[in-house]
């Protein structure tokens, strides 16, 4: 068998099968020694601390220069899209929230918007629910960008940013816990609204958290902006200009760092984003440093939006958070009881002690779900990584016929080759960190 630098292979009845386990270094170096070629193919990952998750990079090197870079993905494929086809539309939220696990609220919102489009209830979603969605999304954007700074810094050898970043991320996750009961993968946004109303005193907590975060964001800012080591590792690294972004379908901070002020929150507003004052942050450097600056700027804009949401929530106190149509709305609100979170006590009293019809209704909606008219819909939100688009198809039943996520991480990761080839191997880390891929979203 001839030596294949990429992967060893063997013939089977199904055809040739390539093994991705990598080779023995001694064997490899002897084989390389035998040839005159300077070329080395290095497998980086899938288990590697600086590939941002279970990403496998196959790098062809000449010395320290990367001549070819390819990604191999699929190590975290969990079949979420297929799974949703055997659950009700509402249960689907619990699955999709686990795709891009750093941006669960965005997955949920995009999925619910697509479902609501099929149901034809997009304009019936109560205003308070929309405000809560926007607030949760912006909080989530902060927590997601914090991971981008923290792990991105860690991968480049900067150990301090992650402590500042995760301190602020904890603040956000505490708020998530207070509102939804869970810190990640909340399944909080539901078709028709949100799972439960924001607790009474949460708005005050969020306001306080915003004040604190506005100050604490400065820590990472003063540490990294203009920092000569950070600049040397990120400036002019991972270059991808506007034309490259367009043809590769790249969205989010990478596109905005190429100078294009494209943000779905502004250009195609959803969930009432047209009612908020905020700016779209851009830079024109097309490099990893520019993307860092865009994310940094977006933190402040998210805080601005959250504060406006708090004002709206005060005004809309007591307003419904679920669509009025009882044939779609989840019948119960949740409440924290003595034994943890569960259905609210007034609701239990009603269905168990007062109304047989209410019990039947609860049972039917929870076990059977609602029917969604046949057809297809596409809904998109601006997630921390770009356009998260959801294509849903219904056959008229209680379960999705097909759910497809257009994940920005999946799409943007394709630009690795364009960003890394011709550069140094150390810059691959910087470029991949600036793409900020989340493998849960890439592989779904």
């Amino acid at each position, binding site marked *: 068998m001839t030596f294949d630098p990429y992967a060893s292979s063997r013939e089977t009845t199904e055809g040739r099968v390539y093994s991705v386990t990598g080779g023995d270094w001694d064997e490899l170096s002897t084989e390389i020694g035998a040839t005159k070629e300077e070329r080395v193919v290095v497998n980086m990952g899938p288990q590697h601390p600086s590939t941002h998750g279970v990403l496998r990079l196959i790098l062809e090197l000449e010395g320290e220069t990367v001549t070819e870079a390819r990604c191999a993905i699929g190590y975290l494929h969990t079949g979420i899209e297929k799974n949703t086809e055997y659950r009700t539309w509402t249960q689907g939220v619990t699955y999709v929230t686990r795709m891009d696990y750093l941006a669960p609220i965005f997955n949920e919102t995009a999925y619910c918007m697509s479902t609501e489009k099929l149901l034809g209830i997009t304009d019936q979603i109560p205003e308070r629910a929309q405000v809560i969605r926007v607030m949760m999304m912006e909080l989530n954007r902060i927590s997601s960008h914090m991971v981008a700074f923290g792990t991105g810094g860690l991968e480049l050898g900067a150990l301090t940013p992650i402590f500042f970043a995760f301190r602020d991320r904890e603040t956000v996750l505490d708020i998530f816990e207070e509102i939804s009961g869970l810190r990640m993968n909340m399944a909080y946004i539901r078709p028709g609204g949100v799972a439960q109303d924001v607790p009474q005193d949460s708005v005050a907590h969020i306001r306080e958290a915003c004040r604190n975060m506005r100050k604490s964001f400065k820590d990472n800012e003063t540490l990294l902006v203009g920092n000569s080591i950070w600049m040397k590792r990120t400036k002019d690294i991972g270059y991808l200009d506007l034309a490259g972004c367009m043809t590769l379908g790249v969205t989010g901070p990478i596109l905005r760092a190429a100078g294009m002020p494209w943000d779905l929150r502004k250009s195609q507003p959803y969930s009432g984003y047209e009612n908020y004052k905020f700016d779209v942050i851009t830079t024109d450097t097309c490099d990893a440093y520019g993307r860092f600056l865009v994310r940094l700027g977006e933190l402040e804009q998210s805080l601005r939006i959250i504060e406006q949401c708090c004002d709206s929530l005060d005004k809309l106190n007591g307003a419904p958070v679920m669509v009025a149509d009882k044939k779609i709305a989840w019948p119960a609100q949740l409440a924290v009881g003595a034994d943890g979170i569960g259905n609210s006590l007034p609701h239990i009293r009603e269905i168990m002690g007062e109304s047989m019809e209410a019990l039947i209704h609860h049972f039917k909606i929870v076990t059977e779900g609602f*029917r969604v008219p*046949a057809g297809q819909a596409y809904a998109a939100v601006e997630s921390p990584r770009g356009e998260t688009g959801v294509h849903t198809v219904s056959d008229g039943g209680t379960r999705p016929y097909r759910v497809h996520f257009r994940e920005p991480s*999946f799409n943007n990761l394709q630009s690795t080759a364009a960003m890394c080839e011709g550069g140094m191997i150390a810059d691959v880390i910087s470029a991949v960190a600036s793409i900020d891929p989340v493998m849960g979203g890439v592989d779904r």
Partner: protein
Amino acid sequence: MSQDEGMFGVQGTGDTSGFGGLVRTGASTGSAERPYGSYFDEVADDLERAYPEFNDAIESVVIQNGELTFHVKREKLVDVAKILRDNPKLSFEMCLGVSGVHYPEQTDRELHAVYPLLSLTHNRRIRLEVSVPDADSHIPSLVEVWAGNNWHERETFDMFGIIFDGHAGLTRILMPDDWAGHPQRKDYPLGGIPVEFQGATIPAPSERRSYQ
């Protein structure tokens, strides 16, 4: 579209038991009539002007949920895509991937590929849909038009078995290289769960009793 028999959820009848041999027919989405509304007329007009073979290439135009879908013949897909991208009045610079859908009951149109397009210049969205028979599941690749479709087409091949002709490296992307079958297809067999109890098995999700 599909027909379900003896199912719950049939509307317009007094029988709520679901056992009356009821038939529910899925909604059919016929071709839309002009005017389409919104910016859809403008897009269709511009495409028609820029592309003389419009009537031949576009099988039907569907407006649903405020979204415009062009059902395109696969032979003309690349031509239509190039015009949609290059014509300044259309300029759909971005293709947001491919989503496959498997409709086993649609004879000779079992496999659909759905392409959502986005125009940043005009801030518009449309959708292209191509349907091919299962026995001849070939669709021309759009990677030369939108390079970003590379991985999306590989994913759709992996999950549905649609072969994108002209794709430079159409290999599996999410499933292992030696995997048999295409998991997102509706006829893909799902495994039941073995139970450590004599004579008991838990059936596969597709075979369990369920509401539909």
